[in-house]
């Protein structure tokens, strides 16, 4: 499990990822209040990276977060995190809210039978922030949210959803699954990366029977950032990118 390390504080307007060598590639971290897509194909550690950032923010900087999981149950996600050396029970600063259990118990349609899931997520995050306080929200995943919400006009509804997220006054990570192996389409409606303030892309390169992970900062508003893809290493000491 990553240990507490004493490092000089960088800009207080930035949320450090605590991925070794990554924050230096974007002026010290992600601008506070940003809405960031964490994109990648299945198995690219999107959820793990997102939780890791929140976990390290809690451990190193005392920031509170909520991680909303729509499909994977809390016990299953916790077991997965344990495999990469993270113990969700060790900190009360990062709350994993298991909405998949609620969906199983009460049904996807919600109590009124026609729940607007985009608004429901915004409302839940706002009420959590108001009652318990939090500075970071993670939502896992956009695909799961899309399977619940019935869109009439995706572009317009997503615009208001992203604006609603910004209004929360927290930094938001949206886990986004990429399905087309031939194209860099970062989310289903192909508008999310325009609406987001940042895009972190986890790429799996499969060659000669080997899989290698790479992390790229595709977009980060208000930030001069590298556009390279860096090899990503995940081990007991945490996440690390290897700069060129």
């Amino acid at each position, binding site marked *: 499990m990553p240990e507490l390390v004493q490092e000089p504080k960088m800009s207080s307007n930035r949320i450090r990822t605590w991925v070794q060598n990554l924050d230096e590639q974007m002026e010290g971290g992600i601008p506070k209040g940003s809405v960031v897509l964490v994109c990648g194909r299945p198995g690219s550690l999107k959820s793990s990276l997102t939780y890791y950032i929140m976990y390290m923010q809690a451990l190193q900087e005392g920031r509170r977060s909520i991680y909303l999981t729509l499909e994977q149950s809390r016990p299953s996600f916790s077991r997965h995190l344990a495999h990469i050396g993270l113990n969700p029970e060790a900190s009360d600063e990062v709350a994993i809210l298991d909405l998949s259990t609620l969906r199983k118990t009460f049904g996807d349609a*919600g109590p009124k039978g026609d729940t607007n899931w985009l608004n*429901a997520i915004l*409302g839940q995050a706002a009420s959590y922030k108001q009652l318990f306080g939090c500075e970071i929200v993670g939502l896992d995943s956009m695909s799961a949210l899309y399977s619940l919400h019935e869109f009439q006009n995706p572009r317009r509804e997503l615009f208001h959803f992203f604006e609603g997220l910004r209004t929360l006054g927290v930094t938001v990570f949206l886990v986004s699954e990429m399905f087309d192996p031939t194209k860099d389409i970062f989310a289903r409606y192909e508008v999310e990366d325009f609406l987001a303030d940042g895009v972190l892309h986890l790429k799996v390169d499969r060659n000669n029977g080997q899989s290698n992970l790479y992390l790229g900062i595709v977009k980060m508003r208000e930030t001069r950032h590298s556009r390279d893809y860096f090899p990503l290493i995940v081990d007991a000491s945490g996440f690390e990118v290897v700069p060129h």
Partner: protein
Amino acid sequence: MTGDIDGRIVDYMRPLFGEFAGSALQQQKVKVGIGDEATRADYMRLVESIRSMCAEVAGDIVAAKVYAGLVTIVREAT
């Protein structure tokens, strides 16, 4: 009084249960067997039951926080 206290409990459950907070409360009331003439003891049993549900959704630490808040609500309202 029951309506008022129920509303406050639902508001306090909303961070964890979101849109399902009202349904979750009703489900727990049925489970514990609470009717319209509920006493403080009934509500204390109810919040114990809600605590278990919170632990399932958000873990023991967050559940303990919610439980503490719910106990305060019950003590103030009954």
